[in-house]
């Protein structure tokens, strides 16, 4: 089995997660901290970045 073919879904899912986080970032009015910083975190820190944003980045209450 080709390595690339097996790893492709993982990469696609990480990419999807990043896209969802970016959409959420654009739709959220207020974030904890500056938006460009969160954009950088989402894009640069693998799949941990989007999780961090969803948990602490969005001001929900």
């Amino acid at each position, binding site marked *: 089995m080709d390595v690339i073919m097996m790893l492709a879904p993982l990469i696609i899912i990480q990419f999807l997660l990043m896209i969802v986080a970016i959409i959420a970032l654009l739709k959220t009015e207020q974030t904890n901290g500056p938006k460009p910083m969160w954009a950088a975190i989402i894009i640069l820190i693998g799949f941990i970045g989007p999780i961090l944003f*969803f948990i602490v980045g*969005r001001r929900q209450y």
Partner: protein
Amino acid sequence: MQWITIFKKELVEDWRNFKWVWVPLVFIIICIMDPLSTYYLPQILDAVGGVPEGTVIEGPELGPTEAIMFSLTEISMLGVLVIVAISMAVIAGERKSGVAELVLVKPVSYFTYISAKWAAKLLLVFTAYLIGMLTSWYYVSLLFGDLSASQFIGLFLFYFIWLIFVVTLTFLYNTVVKIPGLVLTLSIITIMAMSAINQIFSFRMPWFPNSISEHITTMLAEGAIPNELWGAAGITLGLSVILLVASNFILKTKEMAD
């Protein structure tokens, strides 16, 4: 009917918060990360380089049961952290912002309020966990060999009981304190303390909630459900019911006191 209304409200809120999208995606990543990287370790080391010429790298010989346990190990750390994080504000946040008072001033019982929210969160956790583990099962079957459906279902359901406990524990702390961050900290500390107790006394207390995953390993190896697993599962479920009832009473006294 009130129950259904609160339940639906919680589902809609989680949908608007993107939780129904990102939690399943994160669970897929968590579940397949370890089996995949273990399988491809030799190739990864090869590609990264730095290994002297002629070195033979042999990954450990793993069977499908060991490989799928990697997914559970990851869920027990990262997965539990995500579960606690998505439930940390479920009641605490609403009490802080005053939404809880708006709801509870109506003739809605505390138990309806808590149990409807609890069921909605469990549904989200169950869905994410199901999708993640199914993906892991698919990969494990491809890379490590067949894992029978009965083995998968047994492992999946028994471990879900532990996740039910984690959600319920977070709900309990939600009623005790109002600060979501503190709910997260207290829940994680409790789970870590329980895990330490389990490691020290595992031989004396085979029915401790944290030992569920050890018993699942035994179940997969022997092909039969050990009695300790039934015991641990029963105790964990019982504890969850007690915690849920306790959070009902704590919320009642706290809200009365306010």
